[in-house]
C-alpha cells in the first residue's frame, strides 16, 4: 500500500491539476484520503471526478485509491464503460468532501435497489494495544440485519446505508449476517481476520431479491495497536547504572588514607621509626 502512495498522489495531482485547477490550494490538514468502493454487482463503470475520468472500467467488488482530495464539493459520476458523462448511471454533482478525513465513497444499491453513492467517514482513531476495529456497513438492497460474531449478535438492526463498529481483540472472527431479530442467515458465515492496528471495513452489497448479496471489504492500516511497553526484567542483576556505592567507598578510603598519610608525614621522622 505504501508504495502506491506516490502514484496515487501523482494521479490525484493529475486529476486535480487538470480538472480542478480552480480549486483553492488546500493545506495537508484539509486534504482527505478517499477510497472508492464498488458495491453494485454486475456493472463495471468508469468513474469521473469533476468531469475527468479517474477510474477506467472499475469492476464490482473492488476498491480504488485512496485518492487525495482537497476539502470541497465534487462532481462524481459513474458511467457504463466508454459512455459519456452526460449519460451517467449515477451522479452526485455536489458531493461534499470534508477536510482531513479518511473517507470511503461507496457506489452501492439503496434499500430500494437503486444505485446510490454514499460517502462514509472512516474512523481511524488509534486503537488500543492488540486491538483491531471492525466496521460493518449495510450497502445492500435488503431489509434490516443483525451481524453476529461467533453466533452472538454484535450489531443489531443495521439498515441501508448505516454502519456499526467496534474495537475487538485482533485475530479471526467468525461472522454472519442474519435478518434482524431472526436467525435466518443471509450472508456467511465468513472468517474475517482482524489485524492489530487496522480497521477492517466490511460492506454488505448487492440485492436480496436479485440474489446477488455478497460482501466487499477494505482495510485501513496505521491505527496504532502496538504494545505500550516491554517489561522484561524485575531482578536488577543487569543494572548498568554507575557503581556509585563501590566508587564512593573507594573515594572514602582514598580520603582516609590520604589524611593518614598527611598526619604521618607531618610528624618528626623519629615518631615514624618508633
Amino acid at each position, binding site marked *: 500500500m*505504501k*508504495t502506491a502512495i506516490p*502514484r*496515487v498522489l*501523482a*494521479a490525484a495531482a*493529475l486529476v486535480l491539476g487538470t480538472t480542478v485547477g480552480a480549486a483553492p490550494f488546500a493545506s495537508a490538514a484539509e486534504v482527505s484520503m478517499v477510497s472508492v468502493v464498488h458495491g453494485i454487482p454486475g456493472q463495471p463503470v468508469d468513474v469521473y471526478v469533476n468531469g475527468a475520468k479517474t*477510474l477506467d472500467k*472499475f*469492476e464490482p*467488488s*473492488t*476498491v*480504488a485509491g485512496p485518492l487525495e482530495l482537497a476539502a470541497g464539493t465534487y462532481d462524481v459520476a459513474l458511467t457504463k464503460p466508454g459512455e459519456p458523462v452526460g449519460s451517467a448511471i449515477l451522479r452526485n454533482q455536489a458531493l461534499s468532501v470534508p477536510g482531513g478525513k479518511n473517507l470511503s465513497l461507496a457506489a452501492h444499491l439503496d434499500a430500494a435497489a437503486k444505485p446510490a453513492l454514499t460517502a462514509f467517514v472512516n474512523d481511524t482513531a488509534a486503537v*488500543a494495544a*492488540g486491538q483491531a476495529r471492525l466496521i460493518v456497513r449495510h450497502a445492500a438492497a435488503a431489509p434490516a440485519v443483525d451481524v453476529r460474531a461467533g453466533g452472538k449478535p454484535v450489531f443489531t438492526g443495521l439498515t441501508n446505508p448505516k454502519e456499526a463498529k467496534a474495537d475487538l*481483540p485482533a*485475530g*479471526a472472527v467468525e461472522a454472519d449476517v442474519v435478518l434482524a431479530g431472526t436467525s435466518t442467515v443471509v450472508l456467511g458465515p*465468513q472468517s*474475517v*481476520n482482524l*489485524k*492489530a492496528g487496522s480497521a477492517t471495513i466490511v460492506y454488505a452489497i448487492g440485492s436480496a431479491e436479485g440474489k446477488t448479496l455478497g*460482501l*466487499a*471489504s*477494505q*482495510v485501513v*492500516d496505521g491505527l*496504532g*495497536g*502496538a*504494545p*505500550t*511497553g*516491554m*517489561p*522484561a*526484567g*524485575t*531482578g*536488577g*542483576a*543487569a*543494572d*548498568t*547504572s*554507575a*557503581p556509585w556505592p*563501590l*566508587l564512593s567507598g*573507594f*573515594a572514602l578510603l*582514598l580520603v582516609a*588514607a590520604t589524611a*593518614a*598519610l598527611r598526619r*604521618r608525614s607531618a610528624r618528626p621522622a623519629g615518631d*615514624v621509626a618508633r
Partner: protein
Amino acid sequence: MRRVGGFAAVLVLAGVLIAVWWTGRPAPTVGAQAVRALQSASPPTPASAPFGAPAVPTVAATVPTPQPVTAPRTLTLPSLGVTAAVEPTGVDERGEFAVPPSVDVVGWYRLGPGLDEPTGSVVLGGHVDSATDGPGAFRRLAELEPGDEALVTGQDGGERRYRVVAREQRPKQDLDLAPYFARDGAPRLTLFTCGGDFDSGARSYSDNVIVTAVPV
C-alpha cells in the same frame, strides 16, 4: 609511612581501573541508523506503466481471511551460547507486551508477522532477569554485536538464519514501540529485553535493549 602510601597507591590504582572499565564498556547503542532504514524500507515498486497517467491502484475488495502463519519455536544465539524456547504471546491488561512468565521462555508477538513474511518485524521479547527466578534467557542480550548470528527454528522445523545489524539501548520513557512492531518495512527479527539503570523500588529497568537482525 610506606605501608599507608602503598595502600593509597593501591586504592588509586583500583579507582583508575574501575573508571577505565566503566568508560571502556562497549557503547550501548550501535547500528541505530540501520534500524531506521529497515523500518522505512519499501518493498520493490512494480514497474509503472511506461506511458500515460499512472493508474489509480485498485484491489479486489475481498474480505481478509485468516492466513497461515509460521510461528517461531526456538531461538539460538550461538555467540552467547543461548538456546531458548519461544511461545506465542500478545499484550497484557495494561497493553504491554506479555513476556512469558518463565524467565527461560521467550515470547513471540503473535499479533505481528510470523516467519518468512515479506515485510515487517518478527518480535521476540524475553526476560533479562526476574526477582524470583534469577537470570533470564536474554540476560546477556546486550552483549550481542553486529555480525553475530541468531537462529530461529519455526513450527515447521526449518531453521532461519539472521545476522545482527544493530543493538540499541533506549529509555522506556518516550520509547515508541510501534516501529519495532510494524508489519511493514524490511523483513527483520527484533529481540527485546530490559537494561539500563534498575529502580529497585519499582523493580523495573529504565531502558529497553533492542537487537535487530536481518535474514541471511
